[in-house]
């Protein structure tokens, strides 16, 4: 396949709920946008505007009702669930507001988890990669701590390292700093910028924090289920 500049492309994506019932509601209307490789983009919008729904569709956790979604050039609407799961596993990394580390595992093991899910066995290579990623986010001394034995900021940095583990083309961060104090929020944001600059990973960050949004290279605003500012 020829190199694809667009990591992500949405063409006329719509999303409706309660289809075929009297209360059918369309929450996303004809969304068309694209993200190029290495972009660092903020997705903003008021609560209830459809940001999270859009992020779930982009993250292949949900399917659009209409329109087409391309991840690294793959058109996803015709893919079976198993293929969608596989594509999600290797092409997309998630960072959530509440970290969502798996508490039964250590920081290192949490970072290894995407590789373990994909490869089935915890090989030495996965361990080394997780070790390196934790070093990159400055958490080597805490790598054997259980997830809930770390501060919120540390947990979020582990979550970012985990999102990077399978070397995805796109990282979707849903208010990654929303639950952190300003100092930790700034540190986490800077870390994402560093990863973006050094590794060329594309970031799409949902945020309510306009200061942080302005530090992104591009802002996409969603209002009432539509893209307000063109990409």
């Amino acid at each position, binding site marked *: 396949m020829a190199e694809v500049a667009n990591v992500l492309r949405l063409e006329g994506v719509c999303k409706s709920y309660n289809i075929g019932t009297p209360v059918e509601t369309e929450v996303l209307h004809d969304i068309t946008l694209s993200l190029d490789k290495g972009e660092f983009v903020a997705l903003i919008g008021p609560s209830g505007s459809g940001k999270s729904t859009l992020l779930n569709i982009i993250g292949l956790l949900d399917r659009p009702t209409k329109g087409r979604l391309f991840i690294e050039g793959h058109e996803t609407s015709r893919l079976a669930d198993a293929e969608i799961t596989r594509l999600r596993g290797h092409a997309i990394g998630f960072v959530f507001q509440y970290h*969502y580390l798996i508490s039964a595992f250590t920081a290192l093991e949490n970072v290894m988890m995407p590789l373990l899910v994909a490869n089935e*066995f915890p090989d030495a290579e996965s361990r080394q990669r997780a070790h390196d990623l934790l070093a990159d986010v400055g958490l080597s001394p805490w790598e054997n701590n259980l997830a809930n034995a770390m501060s919120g900021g540390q947990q979020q940095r582990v979550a970012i390292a985990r999102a990077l583990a399978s070397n995805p083309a796109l990282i979707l961060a849903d208010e990654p700093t929303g639950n952190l104090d300003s100092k930790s929020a700034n540190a986490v944001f800077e870390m994402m910028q560093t990863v973006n600059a050094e590794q060329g990973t594309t970031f799409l960050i949902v945020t309510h924090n306009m200061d942080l949004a302005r530090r992104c290279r591009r802002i996409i605003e969603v209002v009432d289920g539509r893209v307000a500012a063109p990409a």
Partner: protein
Amino acid sequence: MNPWAPFEWITAIRFLKEGRMQTMFIVTAVSIGVAVIVFMSAMLASLQANFLKRVLTSQPHIQLVPPDEEARPQRHASAGQFVAPIIQRPVQRIRSIDQWQKIRASLADWPDITNVTPTMSTSALAVRGDASRSISLTGVDPDVYFRIVRIPDYIVAGQPRLLTDDILIGTELGKDLGVTLGDKINVTGASGAQRILTIAGVFDLGNKGANSRSTFVALRTAQAIANLVGGVTTIDVTVGDPYAAETVAAAVQASTGIEADSWIKTNAQFFTAVSAQQTSNTLIRVFVALSVAFGIASVLVVSVIQRSKDIGILRAMGGSQGQILRVFLLQGGLLGFLGSIVGATLGGVGLVVWHAVLRQADGSEIFPLVLEPSLFAYAVLLASITGIGAAAVPALRAAKLDPVEAIRG
């Protein structure tokens, strides 16, 4: 993380370890259930084996007996006549099996049959001084007969020796006649034939009636007392598989034309008792297994709810529905396995202790303990399968969780 363990094993074990309180409680519940099953099964197996051994070592598996004598009316109605015969059942004389040597020789060649021996049973009167007792006299070929009915195991004094003038008597008969080992008694048959016999051994069959009536002599001695020289009243047979006795008996009867009764037919009550015992045991096992299964299922249902965010994250990372399904099925299997290992050990140890503590009045064991390793293997296997089965519903629920909903909680 063990580099040789796959994702599902690692995750299932970690989830169980993290919820250690829940895990401990359900493993304890499974252990108790499995311990009850193992204890009861082993105890009943021991009891049944003991009963079976007692029944099978005190009688042949198949007994061939001569046909009953039947009345044959001599007068038949001719044309124009009416006959209303009153037919009385004839008396049953002691008769020999016709051509028993030939039958014995042919049965000895049957692959299913392990022992064949002729016996001569008759009633007689044992007299010593003024005391006399009616006895059941069985003439046997000790070499073969004692392999069928294990009289030597029950000898309490003397030897299971049967020379021409030897007799083995029960303890009660000894007391009644005031005789002991080496004493002589006068035995008179129904025909009037008399023999003076020496007590070579005294046995205790564990039954007062049997101990006061049963006696054993050499085959020729019994034939002489019954006045039936060269005759035998039964042919006793043992077979390789005692439970196939009924089938073999039918085949023997078809082949020889002589009535063949299996021990299964003559001990129908024993089988009814065994069957009732097995039914109640099975019912108890089923209900205990059900309660174990529901216990595991309820813990895993709660676990799926508690771990819905973890499941959502794993799905977001590319975890397939199959992987999530297997994580929870494995947890069920592991709970069943761990519980059954502890439970089987507890059940086994409990039975050994119980068996050691509970004794008969004379200090001997109530029954010999039978602890088959296969019982433990089956208990562990069945509990693990039950655990996996019980986990099916929660595991399916976990696998089908919508990742978006799961993450949102």
